């Protein structure tokens, strides 16, 4: 078990270092930081609107960059190794296939985690910058300063950050799952994006299938059931919007969505490892 862990960590470290060397991820990170900084320039509006714009743009930037990193990173993990034949060298060593899959995923998680941490620090800095600007421009009253600080230092933003991260880790696991099946990166990117989009409609399909009581044909029923069974419900992460809107969200609800994400990642990795075991290389 310990040996297994060591091998998984070696694959993860190697994957992480390989990804860090690729310029595309650095460019993405710079682009994201520029976008986050640019979000500060909505100065024509009330301070509540400015913070709303800033938070929305901040989370959208983090989500979009994370999505691209997860997609491109995972898409290159296994198909590129197979294409370059380097996978054969790796698997010649005492390394099991499931260890290879888990190690690759963990490497991707390290990369994503590092980028998310840098973007979160950038976002935090922009929020404090906005706070200083607004306090300088409008804050003559104590109540106004307090209101501005409450918006900028809202602890609930951490809840939203953890939810964004959990969502991105699930998307990366989906991409890893497809990369164990695929031979091309385009297939992985296309399939993962499709699941990502359908995932935002999964709850609608599920409710239409189980709870609406409407009579529909069996083909449609089977389709709705398939979507409900196979696709994750990305609407559960809608709590992020609630937090940005300034509404209270319980930590219990956040933790439950995170537990759901972790379980989903485990299942996807187990299925990916199983599929990869039987794959001809």
């Amino acid at each position, binding site marked *: 078990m310990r040996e297994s862990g060591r091998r998984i960590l070696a694959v993860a470290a190697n994957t992480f270092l390989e990804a860090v060397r690729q310029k595309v991820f650095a460019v993405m990170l710079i682009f994201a930081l520029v976008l986050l900084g640019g979000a500060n320039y909505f100065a024509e509006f009330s301070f509540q609107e400015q913070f709303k714009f800033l938070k929305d743009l901040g989370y959208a930037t983090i989500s979009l960059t994370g999505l691209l990193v997860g997609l491109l990173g995972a898409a290159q993990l296994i198909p590129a190794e197979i294409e370059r034949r380097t996978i054969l060298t790796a698997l010649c060593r005492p390394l099991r296939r499931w260890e290879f899959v888990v190690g690759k995923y963990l490497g991707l998680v390290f990369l994503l985690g590092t980028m998310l941490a840098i973007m979160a620090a950038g976002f935090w800095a922009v929020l404090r910058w906005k706070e200083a600007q607004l306090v300088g421009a409008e804050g003559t009253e104590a109540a106004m300063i307090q209101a501005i600080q409450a918006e900028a230092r809202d602890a609930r933003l951490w809840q939203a950050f953890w939810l964004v991260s959990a969502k991105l880790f699930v998307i990366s696991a989906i991409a890893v799952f497809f990369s164990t099946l695929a031979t091309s990166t385009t297939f992985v990117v296309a399939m993962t994006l499709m699941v990502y989009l359908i995932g935002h409609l999964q709850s609608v399909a599920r409710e239409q299938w189980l709870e609406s009581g409407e009579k529909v044909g069996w083909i449609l029923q089977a389709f709705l059931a398939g979507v409900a069974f196979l696709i994750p419900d990305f609407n559960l992460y809608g709590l992020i*919007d609630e937090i940005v809107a300034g509404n209270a969200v319980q930590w219990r609800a956040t933790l439950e969505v995170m537990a759901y994400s972790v379980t989903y990642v485990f299942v996807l990795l187990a299925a990916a490892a199983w599929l990869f075991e*039987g794959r001809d290389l």
Partner: protein
Amino acid sequence: MSRTPSLVWGCLLILAWGACKLPWEIRMTRQQRMATVGFTGPTAVAVREKLGQGLVLAALGGFRGLAANALMLEAHAAWEEQQWVRVRSALELATLLQPRVALFWDLASWHLAWNAAVAAERYGGQSSETKRRIEARKWTEAGRELLERGTKAIPEKSLLFQRLGDLYWQRLEDYQAAAACYQEALTKGDAPPYLERFVGYALEKAGDSAGALAYFRRLRLSMGNPPDPARKPEIVDREIERLQSQAQGSSGKNHR
């Protein structure tokens, strides 16, 4: 290892997980909905509404906030150009995309019931004043409808009930309705302290001076002893005194 058993096991695992996750997802969705909109659903209307939102959502891939902000910016630009129909459609869509953002409902109703209505009344193309007033009333009603929907979307916050009260007071001159809205806002727990006095002012403005006096007395009693200075007990005392002397004056007149 042969490919078929692994593939079968992989697929079986996903299906088994699907069967396990469904009840979990249903429970979490219900809990989240209960916490945010106060019902567990789905009702027929909720399903239909969600379908509309869901389709937009799928196209946007979860970046609803960004799209809603873009619409607010478009509404802002249209407002600067006084293009009220464009303002309205952009705002309606923004509130559809993010119905839980109180700020959007507030801004949208302000644009329609105040800006668009006043523009129609003062600078509308109609030469007849009656027609201009009818046009203004239409915009005010549009703002009111929007706020009514907003209060249903965010029933746990006071802001939109307060704004609805302001609209009834300032735009529709229906002071009884304004008092009812302020009272509803006060039940939410996050209303500003001055709002509790506005109920009394609205009742008086509606012609119910006795009701206003009774309300201010109840309010003063609810402040306890010693009262919280933030609730301005001295203003309430002054109002009670004023309404009492008014009542005595009018009863004296009636007696004579």
